[in-house]
């Protein structure tokens, strides 16, 4: 067999496998699917992205609001646990990495630095999520997610209990613990898995030189949330008060709090389905320094609180099999954060509050419940730098990703997806030596599974 013949034969084999498998029977948190006997597609546009039915289920405290919600009705052998991990192959390229380009200076011992492009690729695996959640009793729900990074180090991603439907009203649900903020476009249920596409830049944006890490909407936070929704979940709102600790335990930054508010309304546009628009705001304060003892910060002595805020709008629109989500954010930090200056120290001349605007649009095209194509374009633009004279575009971000997920099986017992994705990220003026644009791109193929 000649080389072109082998290539053709391989292509035919791949195509045959694809078509054979894609005509198999369609068949997600499988712990919930197992409990209720519903396929993952019932609650997910494509898992893990929730559809409207899934949102109602979540907003009701992981309950379908029927007589089978309480665990007492489950078979005693049922245990509400799901594990998720993704073995993968990926390729990462960074266009400008600082490298030594000569021998060390005999006086300073420092080598001259240059920049070079570095590409790495190979087989790998993701971190592990252990998701255990559900109901302890009717209208008493919980979620516990011990999560490990790739090297096996564990932390608690989510730890909460929720009192659902207090006074028999869907408008009164109170959650307590560490939880994901009520982001309708949830980063925890994002389709992307690649290094540059696997998070929303806007949910973690910190301007260059800024010291405020407490305004990260995408990070799970410690606090208390009140969520209310209409019976059909078309109208929903939430208000949360959280510790300004970015979810870190042990009273890091004790005594400071942040508020997060979100509200949305869905409109039934007949055959097009439900279209949702909403708004959100995060308003908080966090310390800029703490007392020290022998130069070591004294726990619990955080001082010099300064403020920050994020606000914006979002939407999720369905046009037949195409759904398009968009998200806008305006953000600002106090000048002390912006210049990393403790509040008890005078600000540098001309220092001002850094502000930015960002937007992303994320279309998904659901070919069928077992195949989804996805894309995201995201842009973050600084509108005011903290220090005059800083290049106006320093830290601006452009991020694009494309991919597809194919779910060869879809049952109410487990989830399995072949994931393919390319993503590209550019940060203006962020290269380590020449302060020019830093670009990263990722190619990712993986088998995402949970059970």
């Amino acid at each position, binding site marked *: 067999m000649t080389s072109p013949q082998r290539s053709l034969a391989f292509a035919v084999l791949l195509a045959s496998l694809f078509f054979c498998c894609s005509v198999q029977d*369609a068949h997600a948190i499988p712990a919930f699917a197992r409990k*209720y*006997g519903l396929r993952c597609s019932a609650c997910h546009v494509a898992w893990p992205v929730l559809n409207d*039915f899934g949102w109602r289920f979540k907003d009701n405290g992981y309950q379908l609001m*029927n007589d089978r919600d309480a665990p007492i009705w489950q078979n005693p052998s049922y245990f509400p646990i799901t594990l998720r991990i993704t073995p993968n192959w990926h390729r990462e390229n960074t266009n400008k990495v600082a490298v030594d380009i000569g021998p060390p200076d005999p006086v300073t011992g420092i080598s001259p630095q240059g920049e070079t492009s570095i590409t790495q690729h190979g087989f790998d695996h993701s971190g592990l999520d252990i998701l255990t959640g559900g109901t302890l009793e009717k209208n008493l729900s919980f979620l516990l997610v011990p999560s490990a990074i790739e090297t096996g180090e564990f932390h608690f991603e989510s730890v909460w209990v929720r009192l659902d439907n207090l006074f028999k009203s869907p408008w009164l649900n109170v959650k307590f613990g560490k939880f994901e903020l009520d982001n309708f476009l949830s980063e925890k249920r994002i389709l992307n898995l690649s290094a540059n596409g696997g998070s929303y830049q806007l949910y973690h944006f910190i301007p260059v030189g800024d010291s405020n890490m407490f305004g990260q909407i995408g990070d799970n936070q410690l606090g208390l949330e009140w969520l209310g929704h209409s019976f059909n*979940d078309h109208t929903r709102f939430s208000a949360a008060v959280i510790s300004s600790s970015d979810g870190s335990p042990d009273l890091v930054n004790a005594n400071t709090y942040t508020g997060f508010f979100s509200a949305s309304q869905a409109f039934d546009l*007949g055959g097009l389905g439900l279209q949702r628009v909403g708004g959100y705001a995060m308003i908080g304060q966090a310390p800029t320094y703490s007392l020290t003892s022998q130069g070591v910060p004294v726990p619990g002595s955080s001082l010099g609180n300064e403020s920050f805020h994020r606000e914006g709008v979002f939407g999720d629109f369905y046009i037949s*099999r195409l759904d398009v989500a968009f998200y806008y954010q305006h953000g600002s930090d106090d000048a002390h954060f912006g210049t990393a200056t403790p509040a008890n120290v005078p600000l540098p001349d001309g220092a001002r509050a850094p502000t930015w605007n960002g937007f992303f649009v994320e279309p998904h095209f659901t070919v*069928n419940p077992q195949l989804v194509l996805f894309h995201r374009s995201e842009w973050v633009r600084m509108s005011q730098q903290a220090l005059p004279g800083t290049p106006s575009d320093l830290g601006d971000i452009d991020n694009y990703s494309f991919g597809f997920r194919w779910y060869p099986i879809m049952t109410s017992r487990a989830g399995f997806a072949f994931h393919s994705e390319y993503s590209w990220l550019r940060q203006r003026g962020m290269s380590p030596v020449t302060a020019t644009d830093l670009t990263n791109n990722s190619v990712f193929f993986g088998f995402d599974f949970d059970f």
Partner: protein
Amino acid sequence: MRTKLLRWSLFLGAAAMLALLGVSSAQVTQQQQEGEMGVESHIGKLTGRASAAKTNYRRYCVGCHGEKGDGNGENAPWIDPKPRDFTLATFKCRSTPTGTLPTDEDLFNTIGRGLDNSNMPQWLPLSKQNRADMVAYVKHFSPRWKTEKPGTPIQVPHEPEVSADRIKAGLQLFQKMECWKCHGPEGHGDGPSAPTLTDSKDRPIPPYDFTEGHRFKCGQTDEDLYKIFMTGLDGTPMPSFADNLNPEQAWDLVFYLRTLQPMHTKEKDIAKQLGLKPIEPNAPATPPADK
């Protein structure tokens, strides 16, 4: 040589015939499917189309009701009661007389409301159009919709004011109609016939336990309860009492059944004031006053 040629000709001819037969039968099946996909539903001003619900059925319903709508989805072995077999077009929740097809609105309401005491959830987050389309899709599974029209919905007269007399009359009807034989003297669903009950597919089925349920299989209002025993739950042992009860008596029974439920009801308050005791199964029934 000639024999070889003849054999090849025969073989190719037979293969061509088989291929032709295959193509024609595939065409017939496709035409049939396309025809069935043309099924519509009409709910108010909404027109539902089966063809528009194919993907949603695969997304939401197929796990229980199965690709063929026969109730044999992958979850069917594990859930109780079993998923509805749409190919039989026999439905519990109807506004139409027993034995007849339900209206499109009946199916639409069932999809939105869900079915208590079963795995069927409320599909309210689906848009009304999506639900109307799904009604048409459910209908496309059974040929009955081609040959029969839905029954005429029963008339539900205006609900009278509840009174002590009505509740007492309802209790007597509970005894006389032998509701207790399945539902038990106190409504626990533990009557003497309870262990023997089976559905239309010969599978065991427990009677409704009034003392546990806030909602009924087909709704939670007095009117819903009225409809349940005046239309029956087709496919189950629960018959229609339309021929045995007049509307006034049916309302009396509704009021009495409300006294058995676990939540606070005004009927329960009245029963308490009356000191109403559960029926004595073996006591002779006192005929309720004619109305």
